């Protein structure tokens, strides 16, 4: 097993799936010669050639639209949108077609495509490069929406996404891209789409998070254990759609308290749905309001203010302590 960062792990997933299945084709801006602006596709053009790694013109809607056509034709396109902030140029294609080809054709045509895009803040990027707006996709029936949190999971989840018979939007937390390394086995690994996981077991309070926010959430959990003697159970959602509510509902039944953490805007964010599920399925277990430590309802500011915008360890600690003190 080699230690890899998330970029390398994603690259491994793509390389192995391309070796295994000649239906897998990559397309996107600057993914070939340049290897992708984050180098996720580095070296793949050399190995697989320009028929399988397509440097496209600058047009996100066409990237999505062509992927849909390729998928219908029987290929397994993996499209990269350079930053999630530009994925909305392709929104109508995904909303009107990728997500509906199956119902519209009553199952005759399917769209097994993946739309990959780096998302989220924390890397001193320019405007439009730091958004966390996964709900647009997660609220769209017919699409799946997943966000990995570690290198190993990123690799496993991407393999599952590529093999999934339905369109998957795959957001990659760029704050995690090179943040740490993890052992990633050379042999194949998958992770079921639609399943969350316990990232840290505990019995006092449930913290529910995903993607880039998992890092500060786990940090906060460690600090709470060390300083407050509080054991947090941390749930990593991984899949926003389909949403796996079983794990976090079970956890809340045990702990009676929960905090949701995400970078996305609070209002109509994933936290709202998580809370609604807890209310529907475990209201009587709740000993305190479920609170949210999230990004705010404003456009994420330029990089000097990012740390004040993003839900960092202090905001999480405070939410947890208030919830415990309720």
């Amino acid at each position, binding site marked *: 097993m080699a230690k890899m960062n998330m970029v390398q792990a994603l690259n491994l997933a793509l390389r192995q799936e391309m070796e295994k299945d000649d239906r897998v084709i990559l397309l996107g801006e600057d993914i070939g010669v340049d290897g992708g602006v984050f180098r996720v596709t580095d070296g793949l053009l050399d190995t697989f050639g320009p028929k399988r790694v397509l440097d496209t*013109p600058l047009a996100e809607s066409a990237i999505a*639209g062509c992927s849909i*056509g390729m998928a219908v034709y029987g290929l397994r396109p993996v499209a990269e949108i350079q930053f999630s902030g530009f994925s909305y140029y392709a929104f109508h*294609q995904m909303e*009107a077609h990728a997500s509906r*080809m199956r*119902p519209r*054709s009553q*199952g005759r045509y399917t769209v097994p495509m993946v739309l990959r895009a780096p998302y989220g803040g924390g890397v001193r990027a320019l405007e439009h490069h730091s958004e966390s707006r996964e709900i647009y996709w997660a609220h769209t029936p017919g699409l799946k929406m997943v966000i990995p949190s570690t290198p190993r999971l990123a690799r496993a989840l991407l393999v599952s996404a590529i093999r999934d018979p339905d369109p998957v939007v795959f957001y990659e937390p760029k704050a995690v891209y090179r943040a740490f390394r993890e052992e990633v086995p050379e042999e194949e690994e998958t992770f079921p789409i639609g399943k969350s996981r316990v990232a840290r077991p505990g019995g006092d309070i449930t913290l529910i998070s995903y993607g880039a926010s998992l890092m500060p959430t786990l940090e906060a959990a460690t600090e709470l254990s060390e300083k407050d003697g509080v054991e947090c159970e941390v749930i990593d959602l991984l899949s926003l759609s*389909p949403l796996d509510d079983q794990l976090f509902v079970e956890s809340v039944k045990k702990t009676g308290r929960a905090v949701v953490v995400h970078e996305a805007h609070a209002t109509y964010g994933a936290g709202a749905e998580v809370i609604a599920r807890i209310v529907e399925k475990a209201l009587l277990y709740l000993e305190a309001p479920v609170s949210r430590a999230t990004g705010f309802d404003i456009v994420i500011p330029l990089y000097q203010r990012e740390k004040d915008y993003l839900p960092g360890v202090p905001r999480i600690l405070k939410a947890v302590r208030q919830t415990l003190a309720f």
Partner: protein
Amino acid sequence: MPNREIDIAYRVKYLSILDQEGQIDQELDPHLPGELLLKFYRAMVLARRFDERMLILQRQGKIGTFAPIKGQEAQIGAAAALLPEDWIVPSFREAPVELWRGKPMERMLLYYSGYSEGGRIQEGLNMLPVSVPVGSQMTHAVGIALGMQYRDQKSVAATFFGDGATSQGDFHEALNFASVYRLPVIFLCQNNHWAISLPRSRQTNSATLAQKAIAYDMPGVQVDGNDVLAVYCAVKEAAKRCRAGDGPTLIEMVTYRLSMHTTADDPKKYRTEQEVAEWEKRDPITRFEKYLTERQILGEGQIRATAEEIKTQIASAESRWQEIMAKGIDPLDMFDHAYAELTPSLLDQKEIVARELEEKK
């Protein structure tokens, strides 16, 4: 030459073979076998009659909104110029093409009478479902063509769209991709002069739609879209280029929507009867019938026989449609094609509807 004209490689062509009086241009006559010409004739008449019938059914409240195709029947020339392994990516005004390709009328009736089940396309038929969001389907054809190129298939992906659709950004992106990758795509613009209430002249400022191909160094052809022979020949030639690896073509078929935009539309609000009358003279069926009759490929008797046959054919499709509806289609089906597998939430939701249906009984 610091202030000079740049020589643009591509020039735009205009093609018309059979004029509105049914007179053929001898030089351009493709000399198609009589049998094929009769097939064209029959397909155009079937499309016209089915369209008329749908309109009646709609007015009777038996089907919902649909987009009549009256006047645009010569589009079948495009479908006829393609092979079964070629793909067709339609918009929503290609019922004649769908019929030509073999989509059952009962399925179309089912679709327009509000059953999603009508959207199914039978195995082996290389055609995408109707696409309502204007302009969005062209890149799908480009993607399919990318697949053909990747698999070394010498096939063609042909996509239909209207004059209005040329204003959408997706039109531009599709042509650009097709040209950059030199893909076997035929872009078939049905310029029927109207996008609901907006006339072609105000949709875009260019003299022709065909010339938009110049933006991509792509061949652009304008054809008389009411001339089934011209349409057939233009598409045949474009398909040949596709199969030879010479890339895409944009074809503007100049035609006219003789009917309303959809059954929810009242064209009297925005266009004159006179304009419509003018175009009725250029009806694609009338001129073709005249031509076939004069050439003695078609006789009075055969015209009547064809009409009878078509009537029966439509009636029996209607019966099959009624039978399907009478047999009943399970409303719970609506959950079944959301994903390959039902998600846990969808299982719960399906259960809610099942109970509601149970209680309604």
